[in-house]
Each structure stands twice: as structure tokens, then as C-alpha cells.
């Protein structure tokens, strides 16, 4: 496959949705919006604007990237269905990129730390989290896997001299009893910006290897208390 020149990325894993159009290495258009749970009107309104304005058209897209979480399961599924359908008519490839790494990219742009934790409320008294480190290139790399922990233990996952970040900080802080006063947590919501997904997708496409599938990351089994042998969800 030729390295992709035009990439569209979409993330619906968090309360703020994001989509971006990357062309020849530059982000030429980007939209963000607030989305109530299960209401995707705004997402499609913004996608129409992104895909059909200023000479842009879906036929020009070489690669479609989607945020695969962790995050809102409904959001992940809507984004996946949409991206697969946008790509289908010209049989263009799709790729899944971890939304959590987009949050980490955003944090590392703002803060000179080398290690961090990205986290979110996983409901049922649990939090999801992933430890990341800064690579030589300056972007974030996941250390291990995305995992679950009791929400009360989340604060202990932040590395020494590191920082924690979330796309829904205020909600998580309340649920987990976290404080940003000592600088251990970034004190506002960090959006998993689609521009980071697009850049990561570009790198994956440039490698020429098989692209990671556009599958959502499900950390919880589909039925509370019952392991899901089928989904292949990462270990908690």
C-alpha cells in the first residue's frame, strides 16, 4: 500500500467528540463538539462539515482512522460503524488507534513529564487506566495494556514525578476522590483529539505493515461478573 496522503480520524470515546482531516502531513481541518450520551446528531453534523467543505470530499481519503477507546462503549461503536461505512464505497482501509494515547499526546504536549497515567471512570466502582511514557520522538507510548482497577486505587497508579490525565476529569475526580492541587493530575478535561489519531494513523500507514483493526477496546465483560471469553478484551 502507498503511504496514505489523506487521512480522516474520528473519536467519540469521550464527552467531547473530535474529527480531523490530515493531508500531506498537515491537519487542514479539525472539529470538536460536546455530545450528550447516545445523541450523535452533533457528530454527524460536524462530519458533514468536515467531509464536504472547502473542496474536501470522502473520495479523496486514503485511510480512515477511528478512536478505539477506552471510553464510552456506545460512542466507540457509533464511530466504528460510521468510519467503516465512510470507507466502504471505495474499499479504503480503516485503522483503530487508542483514544487513550491521544489523551496522553495532548498531556505530553502541555507538560514536560516523561511518564503519565491516562484514566477514566469505568462505572461499577471501577476506573480504567493505562501507563504511558514519552518516546524519543516525543509522543506517548503505552506501557503494558489498558486495565481496570477499583476506583479508590486509581490515585496510586500515577507514577512518581508523573501526572494523571482524563477526558472527563471533573467527573473522575468526584468519583475517585482525586485532587489536582499537588499537580499529580491535570486539572481539566483533556480531549482525545482526532489530530493525534490521524498522526498516529499516518505513522502506522507509513510502516506498510498490517494496520491494527478498528475494534473497540472493551475492558468490561458484557455481563457484570461474567468473563467474556469471546471478545478477547485486555486483561484487567
Amino acid at each position, binding site marked *: 500500500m502507498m503511504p496514505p496522503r489523506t487521512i480522516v480520524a474520528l473519536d467519540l470515546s469521550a464527552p467531547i467528540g473530535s474529527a480531523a482531516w490530515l493531508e500531506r502531513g498537515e491537519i487542514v481541518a479539525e472539529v470538536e463538539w460536546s455530545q450528550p450520551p*447516545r*445523541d*450523535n*446528531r452533533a457528530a*454527524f*453534523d460536524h*462530519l*458533514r462539515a468536515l*467531509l464536504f467543505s472547502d473542496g474536501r470530499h*470522502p473520495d479523496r481519503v486514503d485511510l480512515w482512522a477511528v478512536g478505539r477507546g477506552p471510553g464510552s*462503549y*456506545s460512542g*466507540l*461503536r*457509533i464511530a*466504528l*460503524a*460510521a*468510519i*467503516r*461505512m*465512510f470507507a*466502504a*464505497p471505495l474499499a479504503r482501509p480503516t485503522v483503530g488507534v487508542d483514544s487513550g494515547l491521544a489523551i496522553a499526546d495532548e498531556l505530553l504536549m502541555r507538560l514536560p513529564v516523561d511518564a503519565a497515567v491516562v484514566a477514566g471512570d469505568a462505572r461499577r466502582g471501577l476506573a480504567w487506566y493505562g501507563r504511558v511514557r514519552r518516546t524519543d520522538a516525543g509522543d506517548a507510548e503505552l506501557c503494558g495494556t489498558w486495565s481496570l482497577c477499583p476506583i479508590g486505587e486509581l490515585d496510586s497508579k500515577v507514577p512518581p514525578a508523573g501526572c494523571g490525565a482524563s477526558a472527563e476529569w471533573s467527573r473522575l475526580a468526584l468519583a475517585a476522590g482525586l485532587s489536582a492541587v499537588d499537580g499529580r493530575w491535570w486539572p481539566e478535561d483533556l480531549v482525545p483529539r482526532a489530530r493525534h489519531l490521524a498522526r498516529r494513523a499516518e505513522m502506522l500507514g507509513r510502516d506498510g505493515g498490517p494496520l491494527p483493526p478498528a*475494534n*473497540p477496546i*472493551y475492558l468490561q465483560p*458484557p*455481563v457484570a461478573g461474567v468473563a467474556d471469553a*469471546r*471478545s478477547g478484551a485486555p486483561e484487567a
Partner: protein
Amino acid sequence: MALMLGIETSCDETAAAVVETGGRIRSNVIYSQIVHHAPYGGVVPEVAARLHAERLPDLIEEALRRAAVEWGDLAGVAVTSGPGLATSLLVGVAAGKALALRLGRPLWSVHHLMGHLESVFHDPAATVEDRVARGVVLLVSGGHTCMVRVGGGSEPQLIGTTLDDAAGEALDKAARILGLGYPGGPAMEAAAREGNPTAMEFPRGGMEEGDLPPGSGLRPDLCFSFSGLKTSLLYRHREAVRCGRVLRVADWAASYQEAVVDALALRVRRAVEEVRPAFLGLGGGVARNERLRGRIAEEAARAGCRCLVAPPELCTDNGAMIAAAALAGRGTIADPPEALEIRPNWPLRG
């Protein structure tokens, strides 16, 4: 000739189809999730939603391949926007919106039961005249049980509904009590073939005025209730086991199925006497039940009207009925497509 893509994800079947104007089905692809829900004894919404997201895009492509049509050949996209499981509907509606946007084609919103209603007109015996004739249609599935009056130049009108369980749900629950597995409907029917339907007497679920929601406008004698029937089976079966009585599962299944079918047929008879239709229709997943098909045919013959039954392949949830419903005008165009919202509790009008 226009080609419509139909998408259906309201419950535990992931489905897509391509249908021509006039109703010819070019492809009808269904992925049944039953094997994934069976360990839980019923449909698990989160399992269903995950499977819809995983399977639907490939299924849509397969529907186009089997229909031998290109994306640009589609004149529109039709999708079930309700009623159904919210998280499942979201997947189908998102796919429909994205395709409509991508292709620049209209997006049709279709009520799930209008799809089942449309499938009745795919009975090989159906004629063009039937589409405008006055009819009574019984729609029975695992999630719905209702009677609809159609024709006469007006919109389909709900004239009877269940106030608790759907008929298919009642059969599923009975199968679980009797240890027949999931899905219960086919298992009950298979067991019932070897049993005596008069071995036991079960209630037929009579309704009274006060049982209906205020302002429903429905007649209680045309409405259904299956929760008492299920409870009756549960307690009688439990008592029989406790007393060590010899149980013949086939007799339990036959007697219970007879009560379900009888309760449905009794309301249908009343509706037919009231409406005096030109035809009596039957659709939905439970319409595959041979005993029910036979009883509805008997009721039609008794009333001297035609009987139209959905073909077996269109009884379970499928995309063809959704596309065909849109082509037949049983839906509305979402304009713009992105404005379409799911309606998990979308009622039929009485």
C-alpha cells in the same frame, strides 16, 4: 427501478438487504446472534450491541455483493430506528447515517413493526389489491405482540397489544422452566408436536377496562396478557416436581403452546368480527410456529377472508422487510440524515 438498502439491528439479529421497487428481494443477509445469547437464557443488550458493531459493516457489504449492485446504484438507505434495544439501534442508525451522508442518498426511518407488517405482503398469495384492502394483521415475536388494522386509505392503526410479555417471550420463559433451552419458541414447538394439547388447562389472559393504560383507546378484549400464563406454568410445574409426579414435557409444552395460540386466535376472531377485513395477516418471529399459522388460517376461513402469512425467511428480523417497508411508503425520510434519532420505545398509534 430503485434499489433500497435495508439495515436492521433492533434486537439480536444483525441484518442487511437490498430490495427493488416493487418488492423484489435482491439479497437478504442475516447474522443470528442466538448462540451468543443462549448461555444467558435470553438477549443480553451489551452482547447484542457488540456483535452488531462487529458484524454489520461486513454484512452490508455482503448484501451488496449478493445483490450484484454497486454502492452508487443504491437509491436510498432504510434503517430501523425503533422500537428496540437502544444500544443496538444506535449501531444500525449510525451506519445508515454515515452511508446516506457518504453516498448523498436519502435515509429512511422505519418502525420495526412496519417492517414486519410489510413482510405479510410478501406472501406469494398476496395481490396488489391487498395493499389497499382492509385487513387485520397479527404481529407476534419475542419482543412484540399486537394487532394492527390496515387499509381503507388510512395509516396502520394499533387495535390490540400485550400489556406485559410478548407471545414469543412467554414461549421462551416456558421453555426455560421446562428445561428446553434457548431460543424457546422452536424448542417448545418441537416438544409440543409429541404432546397432548389438552393434557393441562392454562389461562388465556382475559383483560378488563382497568387493566389498560388511561387514554389508550384500545379495547380490553382485543389486548393480550401472558404473564399470568407463565406464572401458572411456573407454579404448577414446581408443584408437580415437588410432589414427584411423573412429568411428560411434551404434554406441558403442547398444553402451554395451545394456550398461547388460543389466546392469540381468540383476540384475532374478535378483531375480525369487528373490522370485517378482506384479509387476515400474520407476521413476526412467532409466525413461523406451524400451530399458530394453522389457527390463523382457520380463523380467516371461518370469517370468509383471505389469509396472508409472511414467508418463513421474512418472519425473523431482517433487513429486507425494512427496505421493502421504506419502498412501500411505510417510513419517513430523515432530512437531513444526521437528524435521525433512535426511538427505543416508539409506540404504534392506536
